[in-house]
């Protein structure tokens, strides 16, 4: 299943105004991996994500999805393989109804009407949003919007799921539901997030970006145990790994489980 690979090689990106957002970033993410990209504000996370579906073209270096490098010809195929869910669902849901939004990708792929219908149904069922089918996007709650936004991408049957801040702005219950949902996906998953507890639960691997460079890349637990690294990158341990503010005991149990 080589087309589930995501590879970046000496990736460098400079914004037109001269800001260097990424300097020499290299990594390789293999099939079925669940990887978090974390870092302080302005570390280059979003810029990195935008390279993964070819919205930004690297100033130097290369990104490959499976066996494909980015060219004009491969772009449509890469965009189908890499399902990208943006941070603000209002940007992602632009059609008059949920149905049409979820159908937007499959229709653009040129699928038949019956196939589009089947894809939409399946994607909506997958995220538990069948009942929202005919709703306009502005009549959805934050959690519903997020799940529908994921469905709009699932309907294109991507191999790789890329999400920018998936749990941002969700209430605890909606966040929990979303995490359960994401846990079940068998895709290669790449998340950026400041929600480090979510990262701890969902991602076995973490890449730490700081000032456009990869500071660390390894098992999530190892990274969160490295206090020096976290402090140096303006990060903190996930709350579940910090000491309990009431009884003072640290949640060693969790670490031992990991």
């Amino acid at each position, binding site marked *: 299943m080589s087309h589930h690979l995501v590879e970046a090689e000496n990736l460098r990106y400079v914004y037109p105004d001269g800001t260097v957002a990424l300097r020499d970033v290299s990594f390789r993410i293999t099939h079925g991996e669940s990887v978090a990209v974390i870092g302080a504000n302005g570390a280059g996370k979003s810029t990195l994500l935008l390279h993964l579906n070819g919205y930004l073209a690297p100033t130097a270096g290369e990104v490959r999805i499976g066996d494909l490098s980015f060219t004009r010809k491969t772009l449509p195929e890469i*965009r189908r393989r890499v399902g990208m869910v943006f941070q603000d669902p209002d940007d992602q849901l632009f059609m008059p109804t949920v149905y049409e939004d979820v159908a937007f990708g499959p229709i653009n792929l040129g699928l038949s009407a019956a196939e*589009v219908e089947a894809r939409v149904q399946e994607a909506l069922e997958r995220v538990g949003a069948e009942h929202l089918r005919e709703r306009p996007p502005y009549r959805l709650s934050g959690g519903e919007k997020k799940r529908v936004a994921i469905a709009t*991408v699932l309907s294109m049957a991507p191999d790789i799921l890329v999400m920018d801040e998936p749990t941002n702005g969700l209430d605890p219950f909606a966040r929990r539901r979303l995490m359960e949902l994401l846990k079940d996906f068998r895709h290669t998953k790449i998340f950026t997030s400041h929600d480090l507890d979510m990262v701890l639960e969902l991602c076995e691997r973490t890449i730490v970006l700081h000032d456009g460079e990869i500071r660390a890349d390894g098992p999530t637990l190892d990274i969160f145990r490295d206090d020096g690294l976290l402090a140096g990158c303006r990060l903190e341990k996930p709350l579940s790994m910090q000491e309990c503010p009431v009884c003072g005991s640290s949640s060693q149990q969790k670490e031992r489980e990991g």
Partner: protein
Amino acid sequence: MASIEGTILDFKRLDQLATGGTSLHKIDARAKVLVTIVFLLSVVSFDRYALTALFPFFLYPTVVLALGNLPVDYFVKKVALFLPFALAVGMLNPLFDREMMVRLGPFDISGGWVSCASIVVRAILTISAALLLVGVTGFPEICRALERLGVPQTFAVQLLFLYRYIFVLTEEGARSSRARELRSFGGKGLGIKSFGSLVGHLLLRTWMRADRIHMAMLARGFTGEFRARQTSRFGGRELLFLLGWSTLFIVLRLRNVSRLLGSLVTGAPP
């Protein structure tokens, strides 16, 4: 800012009404759009002193309200909201046009008053027809109908996006304005100047959002062509609807039915 937010909510209500399931809702949007266009053309093409001839046209909004199972008070309020504008347009007519036209008992009514009344009646008719069209069809359906009727796709899609993001943008604008108000402590804040930068920021934010939306579209294989599902077709029912109403409007336009009825009742020659 409560009023702006309230207006948005009202828009949403109009949209919700369009999801009704009456026979009128089910008619293909193109038929409804065309009937509305014929209606508008008939109403606005009358001579400027036409007044009595306009009244039979109220039949159409009344029938649509009834068949579409729409809340009358809601639409009356919406139309009333626009009346001051119509009045402002017609207000000066009585001053400039003082020639007597009608004598009602002891009152002489000048042409100016008649034409002013005509403007107001026309405004009521046209605005209610347009609002009712949205109420029984829904804005997105209207855009799609326009496109299928031959309006350039770019234009139809623009309208569609305008409608989708008007909610998001007005909410954003309302939030900015509220933030400004809360820090101006009942005074004028920094006056009109602060509004300038507020609007500027809003524009920039809108621009950035447009960029992100475009990004989301590209990510899902958008190639520049909008392909939407085709839901309804133009059948016999639609043809009947279109021909029936259009014929009626044209007859009402060419013949003053009010006067005919009046002469029938009073026995005087029309």
